[in-house]
């Protein structure tokens, strides 16, 4: 019956409306319009303090049109008819005329002079409330992308209204991924905005061991403390710890300033203020009866100030001794200031667990960093392990071979724009270029100096200086880019803390490949056999029909060629400059010497040790790579004291070769 009656009434009122406003076909009895009329007054009043119920009613109405209303309202496109009080949305045609639309049907109602309507202009506070209410509609939007966007919006800038909105929709969500995010966000918002402590504590505890940055961001504000002072330490639950003034956590000055601010002590005077007060009271060459000349000590100035206090010229101020005495009478402590102690304690407990887990993960991350640094050092040093380790030739221009390899890569990229192809081309080309340079150097310089290692060192220094300057002359002093192919961009992310970039993984793999290459060439090929024979006993090898000159030349070329490939890899990771070689040369020699000359496994261990050490020291003393390098070198100098032959020392005949 009632349905019938409502229909009847609606029809009747429609008739009436039609009769009253022949131009307008607007239905005053449409549910959305009735709702608007119900709250018409406060909507028209537009005050942030009173608007709440109207927005809530709209949002809770379950009407589809409510979203349109809220959106239009927020965009200042809702108008109210001055005569009937009905709400419409409208677009401006020109300065005087608007075209109105009905909320219920979205149909155009016609064009009117805007004098007949009043535009609703919600202020930014109200617009914020409307936006928050709209999130609820977006959260139930049939399009999953819109729902994700709504979640993103909440994550960026959450407020307490979102919590209710989320709770209303979280159980109805069909998409599993979005549902999971919603639940997580709901718990995070519970921590921040829930009224009940029990709810918040439950939410806090549900995040036990969660490594997400958002969790820590939600928890950290809860455990904020503030400094407080009392004559004795209170036995309250929210007292975090007692602090002694004069320690790192609390210096005497700020402790005393707190006492002064609580009117528990008289103000202290700073040296500058004291000086100003004394200057203000200079009286013909003396202050408070004390000669100016004797005011060149702090004690003298204190004396003068005391004299001024006695004269009543200045306010009394506490001396250092009084400050100390006063401080001893008070207990300083920190207490939780943001939330109730129970919540803070729960947050503290969970945070502690998370921090432990974070520490473990950071160690893993540090380990990965160290490993990738170690592979870079290994790459830089492996060529040296051949020329210096196996042949015993000290080549100070090794770093410049690395540089040559990197510049070869750069030049190849100038001609071949495809990054993947250019790197694939650059690697063999870099090998060839540096192999050639190595062979030339061996033929022209080094073979004349095989018996004079110190002179080899000097001559190769000369070559190193010349090559560096040559590179500067050709390529200029600024760094040149060597771009990695696109598939090496980005990083492998394990969680919010542990991640490693693909390029580092590639360098690690390359280092392993080189290790394998070295082992195969040295142990499984004819060349390797001959190399080992020549290094152990050149005369005996020569009498067996091996040409030592040729072998030396090839070995040196091989070591230099590997340096060239390492240069391409290092160039991808760092910038290509003429000094990039000299940045690595000392560390490379250290790696070989620490590992043990003449043994590739030693070089591997040496690189691991040097890399781990450097990262470890950097971690102890963050943001200071210079200090890390300094201490690492000092450590290596000391290490060589205890194992002069390196980690893996050759024994027997090989050691004498």
């Amino acid at each position, binding site marked *: 019956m009632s349905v019938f009656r409502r229909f009847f009434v609606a029809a009747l009122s429609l008739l009436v409306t039609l009769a009253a406003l022949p131009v307008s076909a607007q239905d005053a009895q449409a549910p959305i319009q009735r709702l608007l009329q119900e709250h018409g007054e406060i909507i028209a009043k537009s005050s942030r303090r009173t608007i709440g119920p109207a927005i809530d009613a709209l949002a809770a109405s379950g009407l589809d049109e409510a979203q349109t209303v809220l959106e239009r309202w927020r965009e200042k496109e809702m108008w109210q008819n001055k005569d009937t009080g009905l709400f419409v949305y409208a677009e401006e045609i020109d300065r005087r005329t608007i075209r109105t639309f009905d909320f219920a049907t979205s149909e155009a109602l016609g064009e009117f002079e805007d004098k007949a309507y009043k535009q609703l202009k919600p202020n930014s506070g109200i617009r914020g409330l409307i936006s928050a209410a709209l999130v609820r509609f977006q959260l139930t939007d049939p399009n999953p992308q819109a729902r994700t966007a709504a979640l993103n919006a909440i994550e960026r800038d959450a407020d307490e209204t979102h919590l209710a909105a989320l709770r209303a929709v979280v159980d109805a969500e069909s998409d599993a991924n979005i549902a999971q995010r919603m639940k997580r966000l709901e718990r995070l918002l519970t921590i921040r905005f829930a009224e009940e402590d029990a709810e918040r504590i439950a939410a806090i505890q549900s995040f036990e061991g969660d490594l997400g940055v958002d969790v820590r961001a939600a928890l950290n504000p809860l455990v904020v403390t503030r400094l407080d002072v009392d004559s004795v330490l209170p036995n309250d639950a929210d007292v975090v710890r007692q602090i002694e003034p004069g320690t790192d956590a609390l210096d005497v000055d700020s402790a005393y300033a707190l006492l002064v601010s609580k009117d528990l002590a008289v103000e202290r005077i700073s*040296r500058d203020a004291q*000086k100003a007060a*004394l*200057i203000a009271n*200079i009286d013909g060459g003396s202050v408070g009866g004390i000669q*100016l*000349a004797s*005011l*060149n*000590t*702090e004690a003298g*100035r204190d004396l003068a100030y005391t004299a001024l206090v006695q004269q009543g010229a200045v306010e009394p101020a506490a001396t250092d001794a009084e400050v100390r005495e006063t401080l001893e009478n008070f207990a300083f402590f920190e207490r939780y200031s943001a939330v109730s102690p129970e919540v803070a304690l729960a947050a503290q407990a969970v945070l502690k667990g998370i921090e432990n887990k974070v520490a473990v993960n950071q160690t893993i991350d540090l380990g990965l960093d160290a490993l990738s640094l170690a592979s870079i050092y290994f790459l830089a040093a492996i060529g040296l392990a051949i020329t210096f380790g196996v042949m*015993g030739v*000290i080549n100070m221009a090794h770093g410049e071979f690395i540089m040559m390899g990197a510049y070869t890569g750069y030049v190849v990229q100038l001609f071949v724009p495809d990054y993947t192809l250019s790197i694939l081309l650059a690697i063999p080309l870099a090998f060839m270029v540096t192999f050639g340079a190595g062979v030339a150097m061996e033929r022209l*310089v080094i073979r*004349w*100096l095989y*018996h*004079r*290692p*110190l*002179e080899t*060192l*000097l*001559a190769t*220094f*000369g*070559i*190193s*200086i*010349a*090559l*560096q*300057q*040559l590179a*500067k*002359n050709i390529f200029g002093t600024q760094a040149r880019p060597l771009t990695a192919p696109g598939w090496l961009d980005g990083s492998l992310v394990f969680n919010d803390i542990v991640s490693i970039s693909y390029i580092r993984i590639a360098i690690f793999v390359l280092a392993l490949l080189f290790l394998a290459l070295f082992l195969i060439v040295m142990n499984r090929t004819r060349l390797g056999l001959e190399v080992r024979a020549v290094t152990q006993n050149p005369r005996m090898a020569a009498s067996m029909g091996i040409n030592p000159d040729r072998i030396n030349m090839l070995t040196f070329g091989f070591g230099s060629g590997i340096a060239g490939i390492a240069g391409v890899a290092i160039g991808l990771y760092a910038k290509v400059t003429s000094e990039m070689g*000299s940045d690595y040369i*000392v560390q490379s*020699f*250290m790696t070989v*010497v620490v590992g043990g000359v003449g043994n590739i496994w030693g070089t591997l261990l040496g690189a691991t040790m040097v890399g781990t050490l450097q990262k470890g020291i950097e971690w102890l003393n963050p943001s*200071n790579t*210079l*200090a890390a*390098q*300094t201490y690492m*070198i*000092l450590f*290596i*100098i*000391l290490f*060589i*004291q*205890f194992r*002069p032959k390196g980690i893996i020392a050759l024994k027997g005949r090989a050691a004498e070769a």
Partner: protein
Amino acid sequence: MTDATLAPARQPIVRRYPVLLVFLGCLALFTLGVTILSEGFGIGIISTSFVKTLGKTLCLCLVALAMDLVWGYCGILSLGHMAFFGIGGYAIGMWLMYARTEIIVVQSLSAAPLPPTAQEISDGIATQIFGVVGASEFPPIWAVAHSLPLQLAAVVLVPGLLALVFGWLAFRSRVTGVYLSILTQAMTLALALYLFQNDSGLRGNNGLSGLQNLPGLGHVPQSTISIWFFWASALALGLGYILCTWVVSGKFGSVIRAIRDDESRVRFLGYPVEAYKLFVFTLTAVIAAIAGALYYPQAGIINPAEIAPIASIYLAVWVAIGGRGRLYGAVIGAAFVSLLSTYFTGGQAPDINLGFYTIQWVNWWTVLLGLSFVVVTLFAPKGLGGLFDLIAARTAPDRHGADLGPDVGALREKEAEK
């Protein structure tokens, strides 16, 4: 047999080393000549800046002398002596900077209505000196910077102690040859990297500056001060030369040369090889530091880049080009190469136009230096000093034959036959 036949009466050192007198004579003449031609004391043909360059060159000759003693005579290729040189410069620079800033700060505070306290003066100086690295307090290593005698002592003691400790560690564990060179290079690198930090207490990569202004001598013109330093450098070089000649002249000199040629053999003969090496290493470090302390007031600025390993390598280059194993060779090499470097890198040398390419010496000098270094090492191991052998008609032995000793780099058979 009498003692006289076993050990012939020792002749005076100048008789055995006539070069000493020749060298001192040349140095005295040179000093006199420069003084007469200078702006400060003479007719003003040589500009003040060139007097400074010459004074600095004399200091470089002194450090090259030290390098020759440790490398040419004792066989230790140290790539760390420019670090000691730099430490000497820093030590004197700390006093120069402190004392001068103190004068300025006291002057500015004296205008204030109240006489300044000691704390205010100290704070003022610290703010002036360390404002550039964002600090305003004196780090502990500046504790004695106010005192000239203590800083002068630091010029000698700090590098001496560093060399003593480092050398003791290195020689004790029998690190020799190229390993020692790399180790000294690593030490130099560590020191340079340390000084590059802002919180090292020595103003990071800004270094110490304004060292050419002597505190309390603001009224003396730089032309006069430059000559004073020139004289001091010449005196130091002369004394250093006498000291080095004396060290290498007697039995001690024979032992260190023997260590250079075959260390194990000397050890088996019963000599404490490590003690000898340690003495030479420390002594030369101190000489290098004194040279540095004279050099940097003339240069006016010192920063960590001066200590970088490459500087020590250049030092080895000078000595090698001059001819190691003879003291005058080191002096000639240092003077020749450093003056030539100044000439070429100073932009004074004319460019060479090849038609298709113009060789600018500022860019190409280092290439030429590096390559000439290779050539000298390969073809003229005696360096420029070897030219004097041509005059004295002393020829080198033919370098062929087997190694005499077990060490790599030992004297070879034919070389030993004179």
